[in-house]
């Protein structure tokens, strides 16, 4: 079965893959001690601050924690639409 699934392209991820993905997500939260809700608040406040200076594409914005080894890194990828007209 396994082999057939592999040969004909597997649609469903294995429980091993699901476990690994869930672990990676939950460990990012555990390590920085931040819930998804708190991350959303952080994101909202970032938008508010940055929008004061430049116009940004809020929908294209990505704020994530990444891991390299055991070091957590907060990465914000924010597309800029244009500079705000200076008053």
């Amino acid at each position, binding site marked *: 079965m*396994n*082999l057939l699934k*592999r*040969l004909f392209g597997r649609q469903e991820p*294995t*429980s*091993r*893959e699901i*476990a*690994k993905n*869930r*672990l*990676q997500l*939950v*460990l990012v939260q*555990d*390590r920085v001690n931040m819930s998804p809700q708190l991350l959303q608040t952080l994101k909202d406040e970032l938008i508010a601050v940055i929008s004061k200076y430049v116009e940004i594409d809020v929908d294209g914005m990505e704020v994530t924690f990444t*891991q390299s*080894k*055991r070091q957590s890194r907060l990465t914000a990828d924010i597309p800029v639409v244009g500079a705000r007209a200076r008053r």
Partner: protein
Amino acid sequence: MSAIIITITSGKGGVGKTTATANISAALAMQGKRVVAIDADIGLRNLDVVMGLENRIVYDLVHVVEGACRPRQAMIKDKRLTGLYLIPAAQSRDKSAVSPQDMIDVCEKLRPDFDFIFIDSPAGIEQGFKNAIAPADQVLIITTPEVSAVRDADRIIGLIEADEKGPARLIINRLRPDMIQRGDMLDTTDVIEVLAIDLLGVVPDDESIIVATNRGVPAVMENNSQAGQAFRNIAGRLLGQDIPLMEMEAPSSWLRRFSRLVRRT
């Protein structure tokens, strides 16, 4: 002689701390080393039954700490393996009977007489865990390839780093090659990638561990136990021997090899 003090811990309960402590200690004694295993799980002692020494307890760790006896008097000598000793935990007390400094003091008294001191940590991250890691020169973390155990291991790794006891090394216990082959269990690479720490060894899920525990004889003393072999390998690595990870073949390994071949092309 000056012992290396090694604490075995996990965060989650029931993943094999006590089994690992008993087996690695016994394996090192089989290699001619002088080893004392200390059960730091006060109130829930178990290392004595796993090692098969439960009938000879007179004094325990709390007696030593409170000065009711000398460390030597609380050491139970394993009659089957020269050089192997156990200091049992107290059964009728709780974790607060011992402090981190007490553990350091006891271990320093024992250090000149041994090659290795192993400390079997209780589960959790509270006082008992803090007691167990206080004297450690090295920490071994044990986990199983399950989401809950790996998550708790990660928490423990963070605490050990914060305590500057790191870098800890990992033992993955109860691996099932058949389930990995089906895609239903995290494999060694997955766990190491997620936890980002060094691997010391991998132990297969093996009925012989239960049989050995039933008998009170460490599995490393059985020649045909796969898990026993894995623990002997771990002991060898602690002695600096270069031992490759054990090949764990699932029952129908030809199918796996074939499917690997298919995926590669």
